[in-house]
């Protein structure tokens, strides 16, 4: 039992030079229920019937994350065209999320993967054991809860929004025209 436990734990530890394997398209998206405010939780299943975009990111306040989340925040109306909900997840606590969102005028929900630390990030293969933070990883989950696109961004690189919008368009081609004609 102890030996098995040790092996299992070892499996989770990723050497820093070893590529992470994030959940790939076709996988069932693991459900979660995380705090977005001190008294409010958000679950993946709350959005069943709608596409969901999850942006895991290392930390509130860090420069690349701010760029990335500000960008998504700026184009919320583009995601709404697909009836998609976009949310950010990091291991920061709810109070720092609230302060960060207020400071940067962010209107998308930020979920706190705080306790047990990084559990949800780990379930998506998007946790960096070495830094103790979520990786910068994107997932597009369809209306039935299946991962349809995922992307692990190189460290320090803001992935932008084009990959997400391309994935949503591919999934829901009937919305494509609307997105291409209209601007933010």
């Amino acid at each position, binding site marked *: 039992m102890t030996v098995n436990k040790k092996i299992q734990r070892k499996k989770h530890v990723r050497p820093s030079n070893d590529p992470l394997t994030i959940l790939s398209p076709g996988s069932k998206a693991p459900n979660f229920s995380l705090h977005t405010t001190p008294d409010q939780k958000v679950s993946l299943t709350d959005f069943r019937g709608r596409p969901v975009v999850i942006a895991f990111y290392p930390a509130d306040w860090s420069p690349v994350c701010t760029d990335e989340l500000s960008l998504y*925040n700026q184009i919320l109306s583009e995601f709404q065209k697909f009836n998609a909900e976009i949310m950010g997840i990091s291991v920061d606590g709810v109070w720092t999320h609230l302060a960060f969102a207020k400071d940067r005028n962010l209107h998308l929900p930020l979920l706190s993967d705080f306790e047990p630390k990084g559990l949800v990030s780990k379930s998506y293969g998007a946790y960096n054991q070495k830094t103790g933070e979520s990786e910068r990883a994107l997932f597009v989950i369809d209306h039935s809860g299946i991962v349809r696109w995922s992307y692990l961004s190189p460290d320090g690189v803001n992935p*932008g929004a084009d990959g997400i919008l391309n994935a949503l368009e591919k999934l829901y081609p009937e919305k494509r025209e609307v997105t291409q004609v209209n601007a933010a």
Partner: protein
Amino acid sequence: MSSENTPKLTLPVNETRDHIQGSPTAKVTLVQYGDYQCPYCGEAYSIIKKIQKRFGSDLRFVFRNFPITEAHPFAETGAEIAEAAGAQGKFWEMHDYLYENQQSLSNVEFFARYANEKLGLDGKKLKKEVLAQAYTARIKEDFMTGIRSGVNGTPTFFINDYRHNGSYDYEVLEEAIEFAMGTKKIETKKTLVSRPERQTRR
């Protein structure tokens, strides 16, 4: 610079549509997506001036709007002012003046006066257009072409249609442009690093 994984401009540079400095026959085209209130774009502004001086007629420079208004509430105003001046034939003069006076962005009158007194434009018309957001559609079009091309913050540069993933420091941009010109054969690590200076500065 070009590779399968590097994002590419979805809307190619268009001589009649875009704001352009330089000749279409220039060896390299540098496109910037910028926000007039963004402090990093303010930094990049003077660097681009040096880059233009360094490469002369070998370089064509294009500016497209990318106002991140949720973060920079006066970015849209800045873009409107530049476009309104552009409609009267003085885009670049106003573009430069905006970046040299970023702290005054909330004051449309300040720029209208400059348009009137220094550029010989109809300042009243400019102000009226800015307040009416006359160029919003154009600005939004710029913005969305940026989103679809992989613009991931401001400033973002494209060199010969491919996104420049390095920093906007002078040496890095210079090397990337030399590489695109074919005058530099080996791409050093510098150009491949993703904006490290920008990250540490924040």
